[in-house]
């Protein structure tokens, strides 16, 4: 975050509207938390739709859920939790003034994030080949998902693609932010005194992680006990 005017308090990263670095940091993190609240409500609309239709069509949802790859989904869950660890470690590195470690952990986080997106792309392409992408070509081969059940399964897959797609979009934005942090980290911009951008990015990254923690059981593990 570039500063406009340098005020009496000396730190070069202090923006003019704040009196102290502490106030600036508190404001930024509170702002990030408020933003995450809006994100919860944003995803909340889709979760609501999910709850409504799952309650309405429990069996079709369970049957449709069988077509998601639990192994790949499970792998991605592990990858994402790992990336949250590396993200947290990069903030720790800033707190102990280890410039190079910040960069290493940021790159590790990005690498794990990219793996997640790669696996997700593989899953999407599988759905595409099996005609499980909603729209004109939606045609599941599963005998449980024919007739009326096909329309209801389409709702399941619509929600699947919207929820995971929106989640993936958040991952991509997160990767962009992480990439933008590497250069200033390398240049020693962040230290124990000032690392608010790292901290806010960390909050965001953990949030995206937590969304997945909810998506995985709701979408992938739903069918485990049915049939």
């Amino acid at each position, binding site marked *: 975050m570039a500063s406009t005017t340098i005020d009496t308090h000396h730190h070069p990263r202090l923006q003019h509207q704040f009196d102290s670095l502490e106030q600036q940091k508190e*404001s930024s993190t*509170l*702002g990030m938390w*408020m933003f995450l*609240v*809006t994100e919860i409500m944003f995803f909340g609309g889709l979760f609501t739709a999910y709850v*409504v239709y799952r309650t309405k*069509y429990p069996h079709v949802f369970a049957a449709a859920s069988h077509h998601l790859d639990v192994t790949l989904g499970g792998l991605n869950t592990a990858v994402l939790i790992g990336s949250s660890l590396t993200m947290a470690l990069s903030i720790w590195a800033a707190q102990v003034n280890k410039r190079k470690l910040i960069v290493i952990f940021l790159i590790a986080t990005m690498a794990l994030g990219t793996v997640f997106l790669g696996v997700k792309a593989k899953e999407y392409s599988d759905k595409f080949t099996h005609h499980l992408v909603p729209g004109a070509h939606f045609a599941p081969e599963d005998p449980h998902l024919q007739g009326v059940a096909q329309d209801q399964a*389409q709702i399941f897959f619509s929600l699947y693609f919207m929820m995971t797609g929106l989640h993936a979009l958040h991952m991509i934005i997160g990767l962009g932010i992480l990439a933008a942090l590497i250069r200033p980290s390398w240049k020693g911009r962040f230290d124990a005194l000032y690392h608010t951008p790292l901290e806010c990015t960390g909050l965001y990254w953990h949030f995206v992680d937590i969304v997945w923690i909810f998506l995985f059981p709701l979408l992938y593990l739903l069918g485990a006990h049915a049939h």
Partner: protein
Amino acid sequence: MNTTTTAESLVASPETGHERPNYLNATYGLRSWLLTKDHKRIAILYLISVTAFFALGSLFAFLIRLELLTPEGDMFQPDTYNRLFTMHGIVMVFFFLIPAIPAVLGNFLVPLMIGAKDLAFPRINLASWYVYNLGGLFTLWSIVHGGVDTGWTFYTPYSTHYSNTYVISAALGIFITGFSSIFTGLNFIVTIHRMRAPGMTWFRLPLFIWSHYATSLIIVLGTPVVAITLLMVAAERVLHLGLFDPALGGDPVLFQHLFWFYSHPAVYIMILPAMGVISELVAAFARKPVFGYKVVAFASIAIAVLGFLVWGHHMFVAGESAYAATVFSVLSMLVAIPSAVKVFNWTATLYQGSVSLQTPMLYALGFIGLFTLGGLTGVMVATLGIDVHVHDTYFIVAHFHYIMVGGTIMGYMGGLHYWWPKISGKLYPAFLSRLAALLIFCGFNLTFFPQFILGYLGMPRRYWAYPPEFQVLNVLSTAGASILGVGYVLPLFYFIWSMRYGKNSGDNPWGAVGLEWDTPSPPPTENFYTTPVVTHGPYEYTVKEVHDRTSPTEARVG
């Protein structure tokens, strides 16, 4: 009217006058405005954009009223009429009523009232203005290409499957503009929490701040829901997913639930900031502290919380279960309690106050009357039996216009007139501004009161033709709308006039005591020369002061 001398004598430091460095003359040129991070300048940018959208929305309203002058549908095709009322609703709700007070007055005043140099995130604040205009462009694009005919509510499955108009671009426009709203709300919450001057405790905050805090909570919690809902509508429209289509297993009423989960609280996004304005005005022009300050403050929070629990009253006739409807009905009536608390407390503030009927006060008194009518009819339509009768009639149209126009716009206009000297350092013509306030009040009532009767008699909303027996009331309504129009054009004229020809207002023309008046008018870029230390509450008025005070808006045209 003893004019020139009083205006001059009220200037706190006449030797400096308008030569003092302030946020308006700090830098010059278009670039310095378009890239500004000063909340006061961003407020002015918003003022311009919001006024433009208000003019556009008013144009649609004017055309609607013109068509309804005669019972036959003779001026427009029914299709065109559908687009007119849809675009009127979309433009007015999303591009005027929601941003008007927070983004213009709130942006300008929140930092000044709490003694901060700026909002917590000035760049996000500027971004919000650009995002607002980007959303506006999308909506304008759909207007230019023929508009939308779904009604501002985008009800499915009509909006997703059958409407042959530009639904997606209009929905995207609202989606995008929602983010500008979120940016503003988020900025206010953080600013109010973290940027208060030393000594500015929560219970020394002006009620304007409390109501903006409550509003921001609604914005932050509600807007994302309508955003995702409109995304779902767009996806459904493009891909025919079946999310809201009963033929494909979807539930159209789910859309209504998601839509109203935001759009009902959105009414409180519109009215709460206006209530904040009215609290300031009533205290300043009755020369008394607001009666029951804490209760009024918590009433704002109560309205914000209760506002999230009542959305189901929009679906009384949409197949909602009797149990749900009863619960929503009772909860809706509960909102009347904090609302009435405010009305009674403003009235109690007036009692034995030294009331002076300056222009802003005229708007404040108008607000109290009109909001009471709008609120009481709100209790009526929250009642199940009455709602089934008047649902989708002009009674509803009249009810929500009493809240939105009679409430929000009265508050907005009152606030603009009260803080115009703060914003511009200039006085506007007293007589003309009082005349405009009177025209707006009378024109408003003439426009919308007949609609209560029309609705109760059974005239449905959203039709371009009606049975001839309804014509008299419709003619009255259209006549009122023209008076209202004149009332709106006048301030546009004299505000612009005052910037060049108006007398200098001095720092504090009203003798008001809020923190925002403790700094020059217009304020310097950094708001306060030194960070203020707050030692008392926001309304330390004493009644006798008024005898030393003469009317400050006595400047005249020409």
